[in-house]
């Protein structure tokens, strides 16, 4: 069998597929080899060397992550030679590190810390070679903080930014003792071409890359009796927050999360899903408008239309394809719609001075922090969203509050912008916005539900990088007769590498689609840069499964049926894309430099 390889690991014969690394072959027989630079999302680097094993007959040790298994190989994964070498490598890495674990955000969630404990590294063996220059933390970005004194130079961030996101914001610079991970011209993180997606953070094994934290400010607002502090939480948070609080991956903790946030002192705990539903109404109307302009009025409109929910994606297109900004939906992201309405509609209904409202967003995202601070996001007359918190920060805040999370009762979101549908929940998974949009748009056009069992539009689901589907409109309602027989072609991309493929098609004029959903992070928001660490494809899939389970459990599963959405149009917004909507819910984009 040419495609099978048989080798011996620690005395056991193992047969694996051709091309399998020694590391993965060992995994198959339950032998764990330590790794640091290895990440299953990324290409092989083989540079940390902690995974070395002994290959009988070879003079040096072999990096098991970077070496393919070969027929007849005899491998030892534990020997005095290996133990000594691994301990030395750990000791060296620690000697280059600031070792301030107690003051580190990633403490207890750090791969370096775990391995240095396992290998019992006595730090006094080697002298510190930590550079003074590396101790200055780059806090210039709204989203990502970079601390070189905690960096182990594994280049996982570099590979993430290059291979998954095609952004290359981070790169290896200098060499030898001065080698470090840095930016173009060593510019601060806010001055470079960075989408703030935070994937570098979730792929960092240590605390070298972290999100900028805002929870101290939030606690201060909660403690201030004059402030009315509200929080809205995104759908991807409720299926991942549990990982921070002792639950297995894929556990839904929506009810307990709401209870916890209320007990922590948030005056109102609301649901980003409400504005996700609102997004569907606004964006769906916008799409139908563009289709009508194209088909009936024969106007030159930008098709395909592309979703605008993901702020990492927005910054990507602003930098990389500024000439194609017209393809973006003008809808703000659900977070920013929420913020704008919180300090207008919500304030009015509650009779609260918007100046005293502190609007917080609990997000699976690092880019949302930057988005909240965009100067154009002040349509309420105030900064619409005061702070974006990651799922990780929320998890820590819940821990800080002393609540025994697992014993909490379930509770429901508060009223006024707290009602959601299954369509909004699935925004958290790649393909979810598309599915939610199709459920509503199809209904608007035909007066019937989408022709999929239980409304589950399975072709748009899953972790494939780019998905395509089509829906044919037949027996349309009279006002949409111009769409009779039209087959709407849609595509979904997640991960900016895939976004680039879609955009290159558009730039070349060969894009066959009408409507495209793009999310910056692999897997969509459930794999966001603000989610619990680690994130792998297996974890992404479990979170996605939880999202769809949440959808199935909802009594209402289409955005246009959300009663609070109907209410806000009746009482406040009047019509989709109307004057108020235009002012509060839509935005403009800007060209940014490519370098």
């Amino acid at each position, binding site marked *: 069998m040419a495609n099978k390889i048989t080798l011996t690991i620690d005395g056991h014969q193992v047969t694996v597929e051709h091309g399998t690394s020694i590391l993965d072959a060992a995994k198959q027989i339950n032998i764990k080899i330590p790794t640091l630079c290895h990440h299953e999302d990324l290409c*092989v*680097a*083989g*540079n*940390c*060397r*902690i995974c*070395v094993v002994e290959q009988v007959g070879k003079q*040096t*040790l072999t*990096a098991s992550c*970077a*070496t*393919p298994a070969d027929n007849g190989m005899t491998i030892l994964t534990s020997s005095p*030679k290996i133990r*000594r*070498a691994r301990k*030395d*490598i750990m000791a*060296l*890495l620690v*000697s*280059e590190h600031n070792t301030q674990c107690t003051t580190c955000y990633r403490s207890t969630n750090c791969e370096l810390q775990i391995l240095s404990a396992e290998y019992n590294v006595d730090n006094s*063996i*080697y*002298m510190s*070679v930590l550079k003074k220059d590396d101790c200055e933390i780059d806090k210039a970005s709204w989203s990502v903080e970079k601390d070189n004194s905690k960096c*182990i*130079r594994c*280049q996982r961030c570099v590979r993430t930014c290059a291979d998954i996101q095609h952004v290359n914001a981070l790169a*290896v610079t*200098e*060499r*030898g*003792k*001065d*080698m470090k991970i840095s930016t173009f011209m060593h510019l601060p993180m806010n001055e470079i071409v960075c989408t703030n997606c935070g994937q570098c953070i979730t792929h960092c094994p240590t605390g070298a890359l972290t999100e900028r934290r805002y929870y101290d400010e939030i606690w201060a607002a909660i403690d201030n009796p004059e402030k009315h502090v509200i929080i809205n939480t995104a759908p991807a948070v409720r299926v991942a927050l549990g990982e921070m609080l002792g639950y297995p991956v894929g556990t839904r903790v929506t009810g307990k999360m709401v209870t916890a946030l209320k007990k922590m002192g948030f005056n109102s705990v609301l649901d980003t899903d409400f504005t996700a539903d609102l997004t569907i109404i606004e964006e769906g109307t916008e799409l139908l408008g563009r289709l009508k302009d194209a088909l009936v009025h024969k106007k030159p409109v930008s098709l395909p239309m592309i979703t605008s929910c993901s702020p990492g994606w927005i910054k990507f297109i602003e930098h990389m394809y500024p000439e194609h900004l017209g393809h973006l939906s003008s809808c703000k992201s659900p977070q920013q719609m929420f913020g704008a309405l919180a300090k207008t509609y919500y304030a009015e209904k509650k009779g609260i001075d918007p100046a005293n409202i502190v609007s917080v967003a609990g997000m699976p995202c690092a880019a949302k922090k930057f988005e909240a601070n965009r100067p154009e996001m002040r349509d309420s007359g105030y900064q619409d969203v005061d702070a974006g918190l990651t799922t990780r920060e929320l998890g820590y805040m819940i821990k800080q509050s002393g609540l025994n999370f697992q014993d909490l009762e379930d509770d429901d979101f508060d009223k006024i912008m707290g009602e959601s549908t299954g369509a909004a929940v699935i925004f958290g998974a790649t393909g979810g916005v598309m599915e939610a949009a199709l459920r509503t748009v199809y209904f608007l056009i035909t007066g019937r539900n989408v022709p999929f069992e239980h409304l589950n539009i399975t072709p748009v689901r899953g972790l494939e990088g780019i998905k395509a589907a089509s829906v044919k409109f037949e027996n349309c309602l009279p006002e949409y007769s111009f769409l009779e027989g039209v087959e709407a072609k849609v595509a979904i991309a997640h991960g900016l590498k895939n976004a680039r493929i879609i955009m290159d098609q558009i730039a070349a004029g060969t894009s066959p689609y009408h409507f495209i959903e793009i999310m910056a992070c692999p897997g969509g928001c459930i794999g966001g840069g603000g989610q619990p660490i680690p994130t792998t494809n297996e974890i992404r899939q479990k979170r996605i499964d939880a999202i769809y389970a949440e959808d199935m459990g909802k009594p209402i599963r289409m955005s246009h049926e959300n009663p609070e959405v109907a209410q806000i149009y009746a009482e406040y917004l009047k019509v989709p894309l109307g004057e108020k909507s235009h002012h509060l819910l839509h935005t403009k984009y800007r060209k940014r430099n490519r370098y």
Partner: protein
Amino acid sequence: MTQKPKKVDIIFSPYSVAPYQILKDTMKRSKEEVIAELISSGLRGRGGAGFPTGMKWKFAAEQKGSVKYVICNADEGEPGTFKDRKLLMSVPRKVISGMAICAWVTGSTQGFIYLRREYKYLVTELQKEIDIFTHHSKEVGLNFNLQIFLGAGAYVCGEETALIESMEGKRGEPRNKPPYPIQNGFLGKPTVVNNVETFASASMVCRIGAIEYKKFGTSDQRGSKLFSISGDSPKEGVFELELGMSVESFVSEFGDGDTKAVQVGGVAGFCVPRKDFAKAIIGDGNTTGGSTMIFNSSRSMYRVLHNYLDFYAEESCGQCTPCRIGCQQLLKGIEAVKKGEKPAEYLDQLLKLSESMRLTSKCGLGQSVTNSFSSIVTNFREEMIF
């Protein structure tokens, strides 16, 4: 009376009667015959690693695919080496002939001379030689385009995979091996990378034949080798010597009468102290790039080692942990022992560390730091402490 090292005259000999006569004669034979001749000659890579040249060419010839590359490694970065420069200046046609023969037997049509940027002043003359070669190659019907590629000056780019990375426009960092360049080299195609001297020697093997070539050297070390001799020597320069001589014989010819140690193989090689002078300059199974630095008794071996480690800490590419941090620790460590900040026993810890570096580093750079480190620290321990 110590026997003097035997000077030979193969590489610099004026054998070639007409330009590219060696190439023309060689191409009259079969490719298999030429490869067999090279394997039989026992010629090993002259850059330092010593891989059998005939085998490398045979593997490359066996690789499928129509696009293959031949690269002449003229990065010559090893401290104390300057023989490749001399070869390119005085016998470029032998080097180019070697490359052309390699291209012919392996089926390559594109070659590069990876020239270190410090040798930029050679470009004009070398380009003239390439033009002459191109003229002659057309005569014999050999389709082989040759270009000069200037390196950017990193020591690690002498390592063949780092060299290839830098040619591809990337950071000069060694790759994981396997795959080796003959399987997956420049632009992912099978690539032969050989040292300047290897190509020159290969063309001479073709010229004089394996039987004649094998008359020089020992059973393990065939043929002649160029030595770049520097340091405390009245006769610095490049010399072609028969392989197999002892250090003693070498020192008797090139030393200043007060030789304390000889660094064989550059910074990546070994430091031989006086008590080991009876040994062969290149022990069985070892090879060398030919850098030999001679130190007399006025030299501080601490300063020598410090200089080496300083070089390593700068020139490591920095990607792998043991090399990047290990080099810094060795440097800092010997400084601390010298200053009395660490006990003398700390040297033993550092020796163990250098062994870990040998075992775990990604490429030859980190793996060979221990050669000079352990040979100097072990043999001149008191100089490290006092």
